[in-house]
């Protein structure tokens, strides 16, 4: 009985404390801004197609396309959905019709991701974290603070527990996302994945050679990856670093010092930049979700003060 009580207390302490309604509203705004760039980057290939060109029949439709009987791509529709997605993301940032906007964003992502991943059957995982965030925003009261909706209607103040649970759930999900990555590697390939850095070396070579060679016999792209692949002792260190950071990611939930937390995340961002540059692993923009590990109220105040200062100076110059 005491054990249950302790678990309950720990649960309540973790999920229901730590953030204000203002923090939640600001997180919605800042994540929305990140999503604007993220959507464009993710769906750029779909937008490179001819709107009135051929309607491609998918070789391997994603599971929900199979369920709904969507077998081919209507290119013009993708452009319309993309415009809708961007519009809904902007209204989500503004907090205008917040819930409806988030729902539209979710549906548009489902459609466009479905299209992108059904062309050749390669399913990417880059939208998993943003999608979890949007689902939790949808259920939360994020539209009741820092929003147009709040200007139109008077809401009761968002309590600490109401603001904290979506943020803490997202934090935990992001931390586990990296932790599950280790579990998956060990389940599928065993510790061999990390031992000797074999997998990393393999990807480095494959990704550098595949673009071919110039007339002089030089690699067209990624020559740095090829160079690195010839240093197994260095790769071994990297593979241990990958293991340490993926296993240790949940520790961020226990780091109280903001600077230390920022340092840890800077390391993770470096990892994503390195895997993008050296291995073409395209998680480059995903770090925008790390905003969830910070209380955005002081950051926003600081930014607002800076912007106000610039704005005033411009006005004075104009006068």
């Amino acid at each position, binding site marked *: 009985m005491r054990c249950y009580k302790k678990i309950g207390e720990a649960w309540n302490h973790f999920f229901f404390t730590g953030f204000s309604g203002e923090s939640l509203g600001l997180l919605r705004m800042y994540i929305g801004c990140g999503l604007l760039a993220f959507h464009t980057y993710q769906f750029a290939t779909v937008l490179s197609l001819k709107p009135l060109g051929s309607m491609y029949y998918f070789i391997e439709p994603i599971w929900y396309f199979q369920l709904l009987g969507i077998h081919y791509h209507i290119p013009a529709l993708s452009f319309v959905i993309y415009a809708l997605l961007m519009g809904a993301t902007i209204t989500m940032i503004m907090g205008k019709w917040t819930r409806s906007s988030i729902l539209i964003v979710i549906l548009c992502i489902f459609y466009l991701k479905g299209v992108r991943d059904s062309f050749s059957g390669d*399913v990417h995982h880059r939208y998993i974290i943003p999608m979890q965030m949007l689902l939790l925003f949808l259920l939360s009261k994020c539209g009741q603070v820092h929003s147009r909706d709040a200007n139109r209607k008077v809401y009761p103040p968002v309590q600490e527990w109401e603001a904290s649970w979506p943020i803490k759930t997202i934090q935990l999900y992001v931390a586990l996302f990296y932790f599950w*990555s280790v579990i*998956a590697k060990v389940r599928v390939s065993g510790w061999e994945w990390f031992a000797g850095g074999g997998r990393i070396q393999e990807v480095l070579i494959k990704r550098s*050679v595949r673009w071919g060679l110039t007339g002089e016999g030089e690699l067209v792209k990624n020559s740095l990856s090829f160079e690195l692949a010839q240093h197994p002792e260095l790769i071994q260190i990297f593979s241990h670093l990958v293991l340490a950071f993926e296993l240790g990611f949940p520790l961020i939930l226990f780091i109280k010092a903001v600077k230390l937390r920022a340092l840890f995340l800077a390391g993770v961002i470096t990892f994503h930049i390195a895997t993008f540059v050296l291995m073409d692993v395209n998680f480059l923009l995903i770090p925008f979700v790390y905003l969830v590990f910070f209380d955005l109220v002081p950051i926003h105040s600081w930014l607002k003060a800076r912007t106000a200062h610039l704005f005033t100076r411009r006005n004075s110059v104009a006068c």
Partner: protein
Amino acid sequence: MSRRTITCLLVLYWIVVWAAVIFRIDYFPLTWVPMYSVYAPSDTISAKVWDKDQYKKGLKVTHRDGSISYVSYKDLNIPKPNFRRLYYSRIFGTAPPKHKQGNTELGPLNRWIRGLDKGELYFSVDWEWRMFWTINKTLGHEPPDPQFIIRMETQHQKRIYRKADLFHGHTSKFELITNHALIEWKDSWVPRWEHALL
């Protein structure tokens, strides 16, 4: 929503998310395998070399009337990276990573849940049939048409490096092999033509 409802919702959420991890469910927005996980140690590393000009030209196809032409990403109106996967992988019968991850080391529990017999794969796709269905359907060719594609071919080079050589910095030592894929239409596929990808 009350605090009690939210607690129930969170419990349900985490049960679903963890169930996906334990039972290896990889259906968006759930996943158990966020990043690259499949690795089979070997003494060699085989690396495909993309030929930009060749894949820009497209797949070499033969029509029912005997004529030969090329089908490119522009004809299919799909992004270049996706066409590359058709050109270098699917036509060779190579499945995407999701399938490889889903089939590797599934374990007795997950095999039992999916009702798989010994040796049976969870993801098993007849890529030859799909290539013909996808490309012909996109280009508007039906099986009786003279323009219907009955043969597709492509080739690429592969470099095979020995890890032992790489450890000693011998990057110029590799074996160059050419992989050639040639797939042909089977008239036994006609009955399933109108049933999409079944």
